[in-house]
């Protein structure tokens, strides 16, 4: 998956957790948790969903890399190629 596809994946998974969020409502450099009002349980579920979709094991100390769509997709892309 490239970064564009990963971005779409993240948005799709956010939609599973916060159904009222539509693509385009979250800017690429916006803080996802703030913009979508995700609590720690929602965020954990997002991490689990991304792990299940990509196979990337996202350790807890890497959670800050999933702050925005741009950073998150770059992080996952790197983990997938590296």
């Amino acid at each position, binding site marked *: 998956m490239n970064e564009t596809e990963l971005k779409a994946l993240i948005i799709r998974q956010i939609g599973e957790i*916060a*159904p*009222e969020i539509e693509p385009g409502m979250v800017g690429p450099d916006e803080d996802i948790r703030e913009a979508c*009002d995700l*609590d*720690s*349980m929602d965020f*954990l*579920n997002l*991490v*689990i969903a991304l*792990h*299940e979709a990509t196979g990337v*094991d*996202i*350790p*807890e*100390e890497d959670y800050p890399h999933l702050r925005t769509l741009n950073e998150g997709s770059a992080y996952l892309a790197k983990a997938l190629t590296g």
Partner: protein
Amino acid sequence: MPSLGADMAAGQIVEWLVEPGDHVKRGDIIAVVETEKGAIEIEIFDEGKIQEVLVPVGEKAPVGMVLALLDGTADADAVSPTIPTLEESVTEEPRPLDAASPPETPFPATDTAQTTSPEPSERLRITPTARRRAAELGIDPSTLSGSGAAGAIILADIEAMLPEVATPTAPPTPEEPADRKSAIRHAIGAAMSRSNREIPHYYLGTTIDMEPTLNWIEATNKERPVTERLLSSALLLRAVGLALRQVPDLNGFWEDGAFRPGEGIHVGWSISLRGGGLIAPAIHDVDQKPIPQLMTEFRDLVKRTRQGGLRSSEMTDATITITSLGDQGVQSVFGMIYPPQVGLIGFGKIYERVWTNNGMIDAHRVIEATLSGDHRASDGHTGGQLLSLIDRLLQEPSKL
């Protein structure tokens, strides 16, 4: 129709999961009911055979109305927790639902009709559903002999008149989102107005050092696959459960002018709904479950709260409630008690601040824990014990 909270007036039957003749036991889910707080699965609290379903899918019933008849050992009992006599259930038409006037006190629970001497009556013994169905089909019920308890005409007697009955099932019309939103605001408003009117609250607060707990979680989560990682909420929950074991005066209900201790420690967790409003369903026996299990149940509970599928026991069993607003960046919360409970524990966000210990200055991550207590049931002294116990337990997370 069971009351699924101090604020509920009525519910709409969305689905029946049993039919006449089915054998049920305590804890079985028999129906799904739509309330202002979403679709709730209704559990039964008795054992026996379903004799008749009285309220069809799509229909709204006020709290206290009999939903179905249960044929127990020898007597016919009503499924609803509030048990009317059979006499009442067969002769009374469903009361019209009037949101402005919630149903008065539930029917008194009395012995079943078999033990009361039935007075000679001209009235036809027929259940409301059977009467309605008979009217739909144009059948005169007085020409039939009933096969229900005490000779009452039940739905099966009516259906038996037709060789092939294709029962039209009208899909229930779910409420519009706008209605749902105003309904839940109304429900919360009713419960909190009652809380404010009836409960003399006292408030306590303390700052808890979270370094030990958070370090323990971070170390534990390194070993765990992402699907099994823990959140600090699970440890807070566990600490509250264990502390309540030693301070039982805050675990229970204020009812009829007296404190009734909770049977078990069932902690309600306040979960905000994405469309607005909140529900505080219970996690059962928190003091008896290890942390990983609490975490799994907590995740499942949040999911079902947001997507539907809460069970009636989860709506009614909470003996105390936790509200945690830390994710919203709030430092401390002094909440209102959800009646008839007598305590509410609040947690704010975890934040870093200067911490002194034995004359040493350090930076520690801390959390503000608060307690709202019902002064009729306990005093600040008891409440203070609870908060300091929670604090102490969180200093040794490996023992939780």
